[in-house]
């Protein structure tokens, strides 16, 4: 135990002696979170839509006015369908809302298709978000005016701005299908979805990088040999390396969470203590992964490459941060089971957004502990106490 504290003390000295690296370790996540947080938004703040109002009746004009009042998009009034289509084709607008000539009458009579929404699906995220926004806005308008009536909208998705769909799949898009999503995130703020993912990526990279570099540096300077030929055992070396960096990681967690709550207005629906404990667990997992990398990598350079390239992609792509896991092919879904970030993101969403009880994400925590345990066991196993 005394040996361990000696080792921890030495590592702390290394960290404090190199304020530049420490600053990078702290600033990097800050910058990354801010950059990604602002860039990686799937919500639309300013998309144009064209409205072709064939009816020009009291109600339809009211609807157009309502849309024009929306903050999320600008409405451009088109006077003919070809004009609207030209705008869609040129990319000037991302959607066309056509209001049928008999809007008022048909609506009152509960008849079909008084409204048609044509979306440019070359950017599927944008299209589906626009669809959601528009449907929600129109839905609100509808319930105010015709509380009893069911709203029929016909949505068409077009590829690459081509307004004539190859297979005109007309369907009734009811607001009901969107409802579960609106439930937790009624403002449809996509930061809510991206921030947990971002936190997981940034923590993973920084933590893995810190341990893997610090360990390979000892290999490069040759001090590793001296450590091996000493009474220190591998477990002491692992813990001695992980503990100080766990502290630095928690500093990062504090900064990132502060950013998430203040700059991005993330909610905290659940327990703060759980949030910190789970983050601690996740950092430990990432640090151990860095250690595992450095047991294999001979140079700092290699360790850095593997930590960055080897962890960045899976963590971003397979954590559900950008692409929903349920949309992936089954084999890929199975791979995501081994990605620590997947579980961490899920837990974060439970705690921060949904405020679920611990029972809802207890399984996720268990899996994360399990993965961490396996990584530490693997590190111990591949930590060479001898050369070959």
């Amino acid at each position, binding site marked *: 135990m*005394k*040996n361990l504290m*000696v*080792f921890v*003390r*030495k590592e702390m*000295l*290394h960290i404090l*002696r*190199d304020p530049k690296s420490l600053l990078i370790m702290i600033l990097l996540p800050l910058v990354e979170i801010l950059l990604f947080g602002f860039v990686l938004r799937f919500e639309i703040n300013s998309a144009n839509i064209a409205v072709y109002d064939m009816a020009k009746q009291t109600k339809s004009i009211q609807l157009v006015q309502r849309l024009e009042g929306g903050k999320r998009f600008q409405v451009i009034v088109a006077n003919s369908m070809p004009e609207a289509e030209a705008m869609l084709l040129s990319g000037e607008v991302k959607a066309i809302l056509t209001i049928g000539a008999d809007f008022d009458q048909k609506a009152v009579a509960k008849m079909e298709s008084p409204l048609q929404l044509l979306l440019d699906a070359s950017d599927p995220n944008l299209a589906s978000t626009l669809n959601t926004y528009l449907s929600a806005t129109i839905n609100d308008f509808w319930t105010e005016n015709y509380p009893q009536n069911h709203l029929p909208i016909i949505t068409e998705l077009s590829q690459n701005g081509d307004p004539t769909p190859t297979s005109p799949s007309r369907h009734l898009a009811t607001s009901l299908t969107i409802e579960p999503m609106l439930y937790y995130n009624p403002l449809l703020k996509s930061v809510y979805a991206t921030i947990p993912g971002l936190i997981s990526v940034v923590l993973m990279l920084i933590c893995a990088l810190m341990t893997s570099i610090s360990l390979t540096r000892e290999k490069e*300077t*040759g*001090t590793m*040999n*001296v*450590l*091996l*030929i*000493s*009474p*220190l*055992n591998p477990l002491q070396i692992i813990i001695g390396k992980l503990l100080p960096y766990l502290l630095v990681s928690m500093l990062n967690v504090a900064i990132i969470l502060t950013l998430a709550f203040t700059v991005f207005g993330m909610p905290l629906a659940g327990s703060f203590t759980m949030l910190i404990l789970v983050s601690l667990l996740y950092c430990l997992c990432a640090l151990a992964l860095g250690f595992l990398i450095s047991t294999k990598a001979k140079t700092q350079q290699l360790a850095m490459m593997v930590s960055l390239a080897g962890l960045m992609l899976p963590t971003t792509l397979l954590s559900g941060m950008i692409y929903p896991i349920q949309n992936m092919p089954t084999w890929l879904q199975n791979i995501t089971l081994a990605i620590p970030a997947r579980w961490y993101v899920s837990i974060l969403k439970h705690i921060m957004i949904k405020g679920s009880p611990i029972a809802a994400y207890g399984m996720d925590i268990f899996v994360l502990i399990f993965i961490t345990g396996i990584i530490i066991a693997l590190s111990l196993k591949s930590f060479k*106490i*001898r*050369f*070959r």
Partner: protein
Amino acid sequence: MQSFISAKNLSKSYGDTLALDDVSFQVYPNEIVGFIGPDGSGKSTLFQILTTLLIPDSGSATIAGFDTGRDFPKIRSSIGYMPGRFSLYPDLSVEENLRFFANIFGSSIEENYEMIKGVYTLLAPFAKRKAGALSGGMKQKLALCCALIHKPLVLFLDEPTTGVDAVSRTEFWDNLVQIRDGGIPIVVSTPYMDEATRCDRVAMIYGGKIMQMDTPEYIIANYQGSLLAIRTQERYLAKQLLSQIKGIDSVFTFGDAIHISLPERTEPIIDEIDAVLQRELSSTYSITEILPNFEDCFLQFMRQKSHE
């Protein structure tokens, strides 16, 4: 006398390269044993085996009765090791380095200060300086202190003097003699032939084999044949001329002289050398019979080995 380290038939190869070829030797308490040979001769491999960092392909070694393979934790906690490139933490101060290496062995600077006193007095004024900012000679002294501070039973120094200037090297060897006199046997490797005479016994290692192991005095006394030194301003020319003469074993430049090894001292061949130099050289020269130094011996063994 009971041996302190005993190595039996150690062999180790990396792929096709035989790094260590059936090496056996003993190290006794209170002696400095030097392994002298060029880079790639197998010194580092041998040191890695002795310090339990490497398992040999065959053969075995014991230190203080402990097997380097089976009993490695016991050996690791009782030996001092100084790897070739003084492995220190450049961002930690002199004192912090020393304290760390003392503490991981469950010891402290204060407890064992007597061990390092001789070496550390020179370092003490720089106690707060970062190890990375020390000169080569100072780094070397600090690394030695770090290897000594836990009062080891034996010191392993792997090329401790490589890249260090001549004056620092001499001081360093003075330190080693003090440490040995304090009761700690030392196993040291070096590529510098002139350090051989500072050892109690030396092993000439080349191509993974120990060519000869004995006291430096014995090795020098058993030089085969006779040695002549020729001093001239036209060294390069003289060397080429001498290489043509038959009956000479070898011609090597040595500092300001050329050393000629003869199978035996006979007047005819000395006369012939004299005649050739007299005829071809434009300036004065001298021919003297000399006693070999250790490097002459090493060169002779290398030549014998390559003739085998």
